[in-house]
C-alpha cells in the first residue's frame, strides 16, 4: 500500500509535511537498515580486534595469503590476489554509481548495461573468495570441528551406533587436525605438503606413513595429510596449530563468510533488479529510485569489505 502525501517546500525542514531527511521513506529505511547492518559487522570486527590485539603472536597475512591462481598457485605473490579482489569489488561499485546516474537520466539501456557489469563484478568477487577459501582449506585452516561430537562418551557410543574400539575411531574421525609442525628428537620440523618456505626445515608430504584408520595421540586426536589420508605419527610429537592460528581461521571464515553472504544476496537482488529494469518497470514508474536503493546496499557491502580487508589483510 502506498500513501500519497503532499510535500511542501520551504520553512523548517523539521516541520510537518516535509521529508525530514530529504529522502523518501524507502530510502530512509534503507539507510537505517544499513546502519543496523553496520553495527552487526562492527560487532564482528570488534571481536576480531579483541582477539587480535590481546594475542602476542598472530598469523602474518603476507605469509598466509600469498598465492594467486594460475600464475603463483604455491605462493610468492603476497596479498596480490586479495588486492585484485578488492579492485574488482570497488570497480563494481563504480559501475553501480554509473547505473544510478543513468537512472537519473532515465537512460534504460545504460542502466541495464551498468547493472550487468556490476553483477559480473559481484559474481567474480564471489568466485575469487571461493578460490581463497578452498586454498586455505587445502592448507589445513578451517573453523574447527563440531563440538557436539566431542561429548560422546564411550558408553554412549556403545549404546547408540558404535561400540568399543569403533567408538574411539568414531570419535577420532571427528577430531582431526592437519599438522603443520612436528617435533622429532627435540627438533622442530615443518610439514609443508607441497609448499616450500625459505630457510625452514621441511618434511615432505609423505614423510609420515599413511594409515587406513585414524591413529590417536594423547589428546585423542588423529591427523590427516593434505590429500585426506590418515597418517600415523608414530613417536613424533605433533604440534597442533597454535591457538592464534586456529582463532584466525575461525574469525576469517566466519567474517568473510558473513560478508560473502551479503555479496551473494546483493548479487541476487541485482539480478532481480536487472529483470525489473529490462522489463521496463522502472520506466513505467517514472523514476529509478529502486536502482538507487539497491545501489546504497551495494556500496555498503563494498565499504564493509574495505574494513574487513584492512583488518584481516593489512593490520
Amino acid at each position, binding site marked *: 500500500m502506498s500513501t500519497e502525501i503532499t510535500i511542501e517546500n520551504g520553512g523548517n525542514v523539521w516541520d510537518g509535511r516535509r521529508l525530514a531527511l530529504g529522502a523518501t521513506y524507502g530510502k530512509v529505511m534503507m539507510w537505517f537498515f544499513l546502519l543496523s547492518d553496520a*553495527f552487526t559487522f562492527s560487532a564482528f570486527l570488534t*571481536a576480531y580486534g579483541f*582477539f587480535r590485539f590481546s594475542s602476542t603472536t598472530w598469523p602474518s597475512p603476507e605469509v598466509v595469503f600469498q598465492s594467486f591462481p594460475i600464475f603463483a598457485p604455491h605462493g610468492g605473490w603476497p596479498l596480490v590476489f586479495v588486492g585484485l579482489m578488492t579492485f574488482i569489488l570497488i570497480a563494481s561499485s563504480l559501475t553501480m554509481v554509473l547505473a544510478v546516474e543513468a537512472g537519473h537520466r532515465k537512460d534504460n539501456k545504460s542502466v541495464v548495461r551498468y547493472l550487468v557489469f556490476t553483477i559480473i563484478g559481484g559474481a567474480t568477487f564471489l568466485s575469487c573468495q571461493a578460490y581463497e577459501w578452498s586454498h586455505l582449506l587445502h592448507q589445513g585452516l578451517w573453523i*574447527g570441528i563440531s563440538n557436539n561430537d566431542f561429548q560422546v562418551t564411550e558408553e554412549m557410543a556403545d549404546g547408540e551406533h558404535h561400540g568399543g574400539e569403533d567408538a574411539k575411531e568414531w570419535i577420532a574421525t571427528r577430531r582431526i587436525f592437519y599438522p603443520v609442525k612436528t617435533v622429532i628428537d627435540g627438533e622442530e620440523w615443518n610439514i609443508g605438503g607441497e609448499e616450500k618456505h625459505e630457510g625452514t626445515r621441511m618434511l615432505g608430504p609423505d614423510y609420515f606413513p599413511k594409515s587406513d584408520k585414524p591413529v590417536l595421540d594423547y589428546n585423542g586426536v588423529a591427523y590427516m595429510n593434505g590429500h585426506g589420508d590418515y597418517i600415523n605419527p608414530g613417536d613424533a610429537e605433533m604440534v*597442533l596449530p597454535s*591457538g592464534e592460528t586456529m582463532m584466525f581461521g575461525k574469525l576469517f571464515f*566466519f567474517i568473510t563468510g558473513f560478508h560473502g553472504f551479503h555479496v551473494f544476496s546483493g548479487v541476487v537482488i541485482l539480478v532481480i533488479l536487472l529483470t525489473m529494469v529490462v522489463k521496463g518497470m522502472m520506466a513505467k514508474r517514472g523514476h529509478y529510485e529502486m536502482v538507487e536503493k539497491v545501489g546504497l546496499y551495494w556500496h555498503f557491502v563494498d565499504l564493509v569489505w574495505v574494513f574487513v580487508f584492512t583488518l584481516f589483510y593489512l593490520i
Partner: protein
Amino acid sequence: MSAHGHSESFISKYIFSQDHKTIAKQYLITGIFMGFVGGFLSTFFRLQLGWDGIDLGFLKGVFGNYLTDTGDAYTLAPDKYLALVTMHGTIIVFFVLTAGLSGTFSNLLIPLQIGARDMASPFLNMLSYWFFFVSSVIMICSLFIETGPASAGWTVYPPLSALPKAIPGSGLGMTLWLVAMALFIASSLMGALNYISTILNMRTKGLSFKKLPLTIWSFFLTAILGTLSFPVLLSAALLLIFDRSFGTSFYLSDIYIDGAALTAQTGGSPILFQHLFWFLGHPEVYIILMPALGITSEVIATNARKPIFGYHAMVISLLGISVLSFIVWGHHMFVTGMNPFLGGVFMIVTLIIAIPSAVKTFNYLATLWRGNIHFTNGMLFAIGLVSLFISGGLTGIFLGNAAIDIPLHNTYFVVAHFHIVMGASAIFGMFAGVYHWYPKMFGRIMNKKLGYIHFWLTFISVYCVFFPQHFQGLAGVPRRYYAFTEFEFAEVFIDLNKFMSIAAIIGFGAQFVFLYNFVTSMFNGKKAGRNPWKANTLEWSVENPGHGNWPAAIPEVFRGPHEYSKPGVALDYLPQWISDEDLERGVDYDNEAHDPVKKEITVKPTETIKEGE
C-alpha cells in the same frame, strides 16, 4: 495507494492485516498472552522458593519434565528451576516489555498521533508482527521439549549456554531460544525501520518536531536505539550458534567438562560475549523504559489537566538517555575481571545517566502539582509508575557505583532493582497505555471498578514482592538460587520468601481481573465517544478510526499537545487540530456533533511526491 473501495477477505483484514491498528491489537494480544505465560513461570518457581521442596505434582500433566519424583513428592528439579528463571526473564523482557509494549503502542499511536493514513510500509509492518508471532511460538514450544528450555539465565552467558553437558537446557532448548531470538530481532528491526521513517516523513502539516507528543518522541528514540543495538545481539547470537554447532571457539577456552577437555575449542573468551550482549542489553532496558515513560507523560498530562511540565527538558532528557545508554554497558560487568580503569570509566558514565531520569521524575511531580487530577485507571497506573520508577531508579545509584557493586552484583539487590524498574514500572506503563487507549482500539471504556481493584492489588503486591528483596541482597543472598537452605546468611530469609511468594500469587491472580476486564469490556463496556478523556492529541480527533484513519482530509496541527487548562480558553483542554481561527469562531470542539476535523484543508501544495513501492 489502494482506494477505499478495495475488497478485503477475512484473512487480509484480520490475520495478515496491513492496517497499523489491527497490527497493534495483534501485538497487544500476543503480548498479554506471553505476559501470562511469563507470570505463570514466575509463580511456578516462586512456589519452590517460598516452600522449599514443595510438592508440585498437580502440574505433572503439563510440566512433568520439570519435576523430579523424590518418592514422596514431585519437587521442582534444580536445573529446571534455572530453566524457569531463564524463560521467565526472556519472555517478559523481550516478548512482553519490548514487543508487547513498544510494538503495540508504536503501531497504534504513531500514524494516529502524527496524522498519517498508515505506516510508511504497511507490508513490512505486517511482516514484523508475524515474525514476532512465529518467534513467540518457537519460544513457547521450547518450554515443552524433553531436555527443557534454555537454562543459562536470560543473559545466556557461555560457556554454560554453549555446552549441553553443563546443563540439559543448553541443548535443543538453547538452539530453539537462539532461533526464536533471531526471528525476534528481525521483527524488531522491521518495526523500528517503519517507525523511524514514518515519524520522519509522514507528519501532517504543522506538526514540527517541537510539537510532537512525548509518546512519539519516545517511540522514535526507542526505534533508533533498537536499530543500533539489536544487531549486536544478533552478532553475539550468531557467534554463539557457531560455537555450539560448528566447532568454533569464540567464547570458549580451557574447558574440561564431563570427562573431556575441549582441546579443539579453545582460545576464545567468555567475556567477549558479555561485552556484545550488554551492548544490546543496556539500551534494551531503555528500549523498554522509554515508551513507558512517554505513555506516562501523555497520561499524566491528560488526566491532571495540565501541560507536562518542562516539555523541552523532557525531550532533552530522552535524548540524553538515548545517547548515554550506548556507553554504559560495562556496569553489568564490573566484577568480571575487566580492567579496573575501564570499570571506573563505565561507573562515571553510569552515574551521569541517572541525571536525565531524575529530571524526568521531578517533571512528573511538577506536572501533578496544582493540577486537577482525574483518577482514571490509566492515571492510577501512571502514578504507580512514577512511584516505582523513583524506588527502582534510586537503587540503580547503588549499583552504578562500582565499589558498591562488588558485594551487590548478582545478588537479590540487583533482582529487586531491575524488577521494580522494568518488571513493575514498565509494565505499569503498559497497563496505563492499555486503559488509556482502549477506547481508541475497541471503542469502549474498560470497567472502572475492576480497574481500581487491578491497580491496587498489583501495586501493593509488587512492592510486597520486590521491596524486601533489597534486604536479601544487602545480606549477600545470590540470585538464581534454587533454595536458600545451604548458606547461613541466606537461611534467615526462608520465612520472608513465603511472604513474597504469597504476595506474588496474589499479584498474579490480580492480573486475571485485568484479563477479565479486557475481554468483557470489548463487548459489554460502556461505549466511548470520540474523545472520552478530553485529550489534545490527534488520535482523539476521530471516532473509530477505520482504514486510512480519517474519513476526509488529515487534520492540520496548530499547537503543541499539552494545551490543558490554558488561560483564556473556556474548556480545560485545547486539541492540537483546533486553529486560532476556530477558537475565535467559537467552534464547540467538545461536542462531537460539530466535528471540525471534517473540514477541508485549503493550503495548496507546491510539490507532490508519491511515496511508492
